[in-house]
């Protein structure tokens, strides 16, 4: 469903962060992308989210080049992609409920569906009792669970999680990984970037290793190796 075809990214200062990347992500996969800081993982994610455009090559979602999508098509594409960030990026002046409802409102969902689905998804991430808390009233792990709930609320085809456990303690890390695994088990494709060897090894799924902007290893059922 996702295709990187000879993709390179070079910034104006001449820094080449991605170099001729070609890879395919199939529907229903859970893919971990690992690598040192500066290996190009986050840039790869930014290209997937169309936050940045490649210098060369094409990134496709099914048959669509995502970097040539028009405004409305881009909005539709982004609604098919749920995203979870290391720093959570919740909207600070909205409650947990409102942060999740916002994604549904933006997608034009009916009020009744929002009233039904948001408490349900908060229950899934075990935060129903804190649905009216603002982000600053929640712990890091709780904020990340709200972010995951927001990412899955519109039933996206892919979840992209960029270092989702980077700011969390081991217990919360375990919880978040279990949630992502559960989401994948229900059929959603998950792309996860991480530094955490324990996560990658415990998942036992596909691992793509990056180094200096290149894919150096792509294992179907791999371990964290660098």
């Amino acid at each position, binding site marked *: 469903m996702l295709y990187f075809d000879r993709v390179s990214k070079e910034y104006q200062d001449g820094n080449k962060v991605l170099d001729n990347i070609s890879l395919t992500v199939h529907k229903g996969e859970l893919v971990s992308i690992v690598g040192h800081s500066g290996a190009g993982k986050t840039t790869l994610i930014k290209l997937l989210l169309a936050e940045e455009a490649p210098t060369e090559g094409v990134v496709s979602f099914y048959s669509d080049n995502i970097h040539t999508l028009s405004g409305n098509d881009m909005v539709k594409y982004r609604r098919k992609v749920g995203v979870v960030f290391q720093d959570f990026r919740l909207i600070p002046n909205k409650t947990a409920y409102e942060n999740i409802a916002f994604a549904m409102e*933006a997608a034009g969902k009916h009020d009744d569906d929002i009233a039904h689905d948001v408490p349900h998804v908060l229950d899934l991430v075990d935060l129903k009792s804190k649905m009216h808390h603002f982000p600053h009233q929640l712990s890091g792990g709780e904020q990340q669970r709200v972010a995951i709930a927001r990412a899955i609320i519109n039933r996206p085809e892919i979840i992209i999680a960029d270092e989702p456990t980077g700011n969390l303690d081991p217990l919360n890390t375990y919880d978040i990984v279990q949630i992502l695994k559960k989401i994948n088990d229900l059929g959603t494709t998950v792309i996860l970037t991480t530094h955490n060897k324990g996560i990658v090894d415990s998942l036992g799924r596909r691992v793509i290793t990056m180094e200096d902007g290149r894919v150096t290893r792509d294992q179907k059922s791999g371990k964290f190796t660098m």
Partner: protein
Amino acid sequence: MRASLTKRIVTAGFRGFYRNKTVSLSSIFILTITLSIITAFYLFHAVFTYTLDQIREKVDVRVYFTVDATDEQVSDVKSKLLGLSQVKSVTYTSATQALADFKVKHAGDQLTLQALDELAANPFGASLSVVAKDTSQYESIANQLATGSGLLGDAAGAVDKINYYQLKDSIDKLNNIIGWTNTVGFWLSILFILMSCMIVYNTIRLAIFVYRDEIAVMKLVGASNMFIRGPFVVESVLYALIATAITLALFYPGTIWVTKKTVIFFEGMNINQYFVDHFFELGGMLLLAGIVLTVISSLLAVRKYLKI
């Protein structure tokens, strides 16, 4: 669907306004200052126009007739003057009235009054006071009244003198002052309007800068540009509504105080009454200016962060 979208945008705007109190209050504060500057200019312009009108009313050109001039001749000149497009009004003063006015004016000057009584006949002739629509037109009127111009015709011999040429320097000075103050006023207004626009734009830009990361997240979760912009527009309209109300509430007692202090200086102009008479016009203008300024500023400021 569209009604639901509008409801969500309006609700989000009100919620954002309420929850971001610091940003809302600082934006309202700056906008109130801007609208106060506009109101002060509006009132200043009214006072200035009123004062100039008062001065203009006091300027006239008088056509003095000889004592032998007949009523028909005076009446003929009056109707010809009224036929001129530059003339606003013509007031007739009879010879008898001129004598009475002179006596009143010199009531304390017994010597002059005695000298006047020595004369067998009234030494004053009738006169016409001509007020032009604009002070710059007096010269043109005076030229048309000059002998040989054809306007006076047979009545030319009945005209003793026209006092424009004695007043010419004063009228020219007045014209220069009016022209100069109009030009300065115009450029000052432009300057203040531009400054106001910049102040409001920068305030809104700073307020929205705080939300730049949120806007990026909204884009990434699939919100359309309209869905992101909408609440900011609603908040801007709320800023304008409240700032307009505060400005009007401040200026009402303010104009009462200024009126008490200046009613003599401005020759009877009641600024508070003017403010009350033009309350809805001024309020509408301030609200429109506030909405246009804040909405355009917020649309421009948000646009920058929508480019992802």
